[in-house]
């Protein structure tokens, strides 16, 4: 194994006050080994390493030398703490720290009231030792639930090998693993079975674009929606952002194999929120969007209510009924129709709107309006065309 790049040495030749000149030719040093290492990856940007060593100290002043090479230790963050694991610990104090010029090293002058071994913990921030999360989601054949496996991947490009190390990724349990130089280690944090999942179909021109602009057909991406809630067996903590590889069982039953559906980058999902995992674009749901009407009603002077009616003609070629979400982004829509002004939109639904229910409250605000519509399954070779209208009134607008 590559020798450690981080070294703690106690100089025994120079132990009592006053310190002898450092040029002393005859030196004896002890090299206390690491008894324990903890790597804390709970901070989003920094990695904290804590190592415990048992340091032999004599009565009087001791010099404890900490040096490192080819590692990215931040020297301003190094902390030396005594860990009291003894009923009658020696009285140990750090008198001063010196930083020799042009060296990656520091020297603690440590006073002890008697000769004894002291367990100390040396902590520092270390660059090059990073983590990320990734997931494997295996959906049941009927896409009603999935098994979610959460992994943490630790990459050690810090230039230092750590033997059995307690690694805390910021959630889940602590792992006890060795991690060598330039090694990447992936560990299973948790596996959650039977997580309910909803498959969604969404058409939203200004987020997902056209499938075929010449024919006014919208892209209809499909997502698995996972709610990070206790009812779903989740909800203990946020799901960190990470890549999700999505699979589906190709048949019911335990002996089914899995098919790869795709992968997506999931955002950080706090407790109570949901993650939408992109599965691809639905080919069997066709949504044609056209502008049915445009009209301005003068209120007075240059003040108008500007009306626009959008028409959606929707066909479901699947042999199962689906629910489609239709969303319009308000400001991009104003831009699209040449209705932008210096004032934010004051929008309302017009009477020509024909959705069977009102907008989805959780997905509608000043910036977006979302409706949901149930589409029947294809009957035979024919898909029923469902036509709905959305009238938006941009009130009290002037240019």
């Amino acid at each position, binding site marked *: 194994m590559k020798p450690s790049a981080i070294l703690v040495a106690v100089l025994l030749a120079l132990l009592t*006050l006053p*310190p*002898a*000149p*450092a*040029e002393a030719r005859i030196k004896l040093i002890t090299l206390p080994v690491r008894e324990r290492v*903890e790597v*804390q990856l*709970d*901070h*989003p940007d*920094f990695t*904290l390493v*804590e190592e415990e060593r048992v340091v032999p100290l004599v009565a*009087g*002043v001791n010099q404890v030398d900490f040096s490192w090479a080819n590692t990215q230790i931040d020297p*301003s*963050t190094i*902390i030396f*703490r005594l*860990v009291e694991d003894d009923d009658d610990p020696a009285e140990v*104090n*750090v*008198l*001063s*720290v*010196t*930083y*020799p*010029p042009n060296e990656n090293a520091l020297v603690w002058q440590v*006073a*002890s*009231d008697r000769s004894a071994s002291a367990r100390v*913990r040396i*902590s520092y*921030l270390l660059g090059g030792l990073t983590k990320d999360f990734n997931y494997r989601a295996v959906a049941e054949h009927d896409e009603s639930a999935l098994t979610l496996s959460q992994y943490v991947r630790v990459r050690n490009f810090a230039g230092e090998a750590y033997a059995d190390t307690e690694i*805390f990724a910021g959630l889940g349990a602590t792992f006890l693993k060795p991690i060598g130089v330039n090694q990447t280690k992936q560990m299973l944090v948790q596996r959650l079975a039977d997580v309910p999942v909803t498959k969604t179909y969404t058409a939203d021109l200004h987020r997902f674009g056209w499938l075929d602009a010449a024919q006014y057909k919208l892209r209809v991406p499909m997502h698995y929606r996972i709610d990070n809630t206790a009812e779903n067996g989740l909800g203990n*903590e*946020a799901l960190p952002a990470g890549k999700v590889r999505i699979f589906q069982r190709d048949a019911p039953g335990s002996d089914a194999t899995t098919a790869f559906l795709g992968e997506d980058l999931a955002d*950080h999902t*706090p*407790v*109570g*929120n949901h993650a939408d995992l992109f599965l691809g674009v639905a080919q069997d749901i066709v949504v044609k969007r056209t502008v049915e009407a445009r009209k301005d009603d*003068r*209120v*007075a*002077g*240059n*003040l108008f209510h500007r009306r626009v009616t959008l028409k959606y003609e929707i066909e479901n070629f699947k042999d199962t009924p689906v629910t489609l979400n239709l969303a319009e982004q308000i400001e991009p829509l104003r831009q699209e129709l040449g209705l932008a002004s210096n*004032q*934010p*939109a*004051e*929008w309302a639904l017009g009477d020509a709107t024909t959705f069977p229910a009102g907008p989805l409250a959780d997905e509608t*605000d*000043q910036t977006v309006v979302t409706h949901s519509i149930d589409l029947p399954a294809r009957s035979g070779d024919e898909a029923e065309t469902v036509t709905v209208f959305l009238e938006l009134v941009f*009130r*009290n607008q*002037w240019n």
Partner: protein
Amino acid sequence: MPNTHRNKLLPCLIVFLGALGVLGGSTSAANNIDLSTVPDRDTVQLTIYNSEDLTLVRETRKVVFREGNNPLQFSWAGTLIDPTSVQLRFLSHADKLDVLDTTFPHDRPQELTWNVGSEHAGEATIEISYFTSGVTWSADYVVIADADESSAAVEGHVTVHNRSGEDYDDAQVRLVVGTINLVEQIAELARQQGKSFEQLRENEVQTLRPRAARMMLGRAEAASDLAPSAPAPKQIVKQGLSEYFIFTIEGTEDIPNQMRKRLPSFAADAVPLRVQYRYRPRQYGDRLARLYLMTNDAASDLGTSPLPDGQARVFRRKSADAPGLSFLARQSIRYIPVGEDFELDLGTDPDVGFELITKRIYRENVWLRLRGANVFRRVGQPGVAIDDRSTVAGWDQHAVIVRRVRNDTPRKIDVEIRQAVPGDATFISRLDATRFDNQTVVYGGTLEPGQRYDAMYEIVTRQGRNAKQSRVEIVAGDPGPRK
């Protein structure tokens, strides 16, 4: 390499033993054979004054004088000593010793020779003082909060960094905290030159600064020399003086050239702390910042001195019964006077959600200006016709907004939101909101673990000719359209 004695002889005092210098003619070509002694430093004291990159060095040496003229050569090659600041003072037999003249040789810029006239034959103690640059100090802090974040261990440290070119062994070290205002001292020096402060040019002010600093520093009383009785961390004596503080490191320290040395300044085991989440975009940016709030006072086990500017590194114990830490933040803290509150900004907390959702915007009370006239009409007034060529001149814009805060931590959290509401505005809500200033509203509260709270409010901003003033008024009411 702490105790290195190199052969650079910086700064060096030489006593000439020959006839050299008797007549003050030390450059005479006939005097090529010299004999001299080199008296060692007895004591040295450094007073480091960071804000001016200025350190006052006072060193004492014992010199044996003979009656008559005694040439003393002082040289400082390779150092950053200010040659105009070098002074010689006699600490013993001062009534019998006098500097007759001082010679600065033209060919050796970092050297001078004092010609001391003496009526005393024997040993005397002299003090040589001068200013040097290149010695600096900084403070830093390590804060380790308990697992339950009700208190924290706070350690202060000072680090002295010597890049002056000179080794200072066994030096008493004093650190000046704060930026000293030297105007009074400079004005006093100017008066001695028959000028007022206002008459001084900038370069004259800069010339007088070191002398003024010296005058200021000279008034500080030397802290007592305490010999360490046992190997224990040295105390740093904090001494208030006029408008600033001097920290004196107990005993003496070796501060070799190019060396950085860090010493503990204070340690408080259990400083009470309070956690608060604050939204103050002007202060912390557009985010909900998590803060540790503490006070530099005696009740907090602090308060013996101001806390100088410095880097703080903040950790939290992962549990009460294990030594493991989590790193939380690193930040600069500014000078904290005794008695003052201070805060550590830990950044955002991923377990506390904070969203701004604009639910809707609508306009009311729209006024139009009739074309070609200074006449205004309100839209919707019954029986009032408005010409089609009129233009909108004033309106009230209503924005219904939700601040959503979600507490996914296992603890109660205290949230304070301070937001600017510019213009002629009304803030309508059922929140217990107060006005921080003319344009700023404050509200907040406590969230239980797992709680999601939607703070809903409506901001009415009068625009165009409707705007009459620039202030926010807080009104208790339900947000949303009233018709």
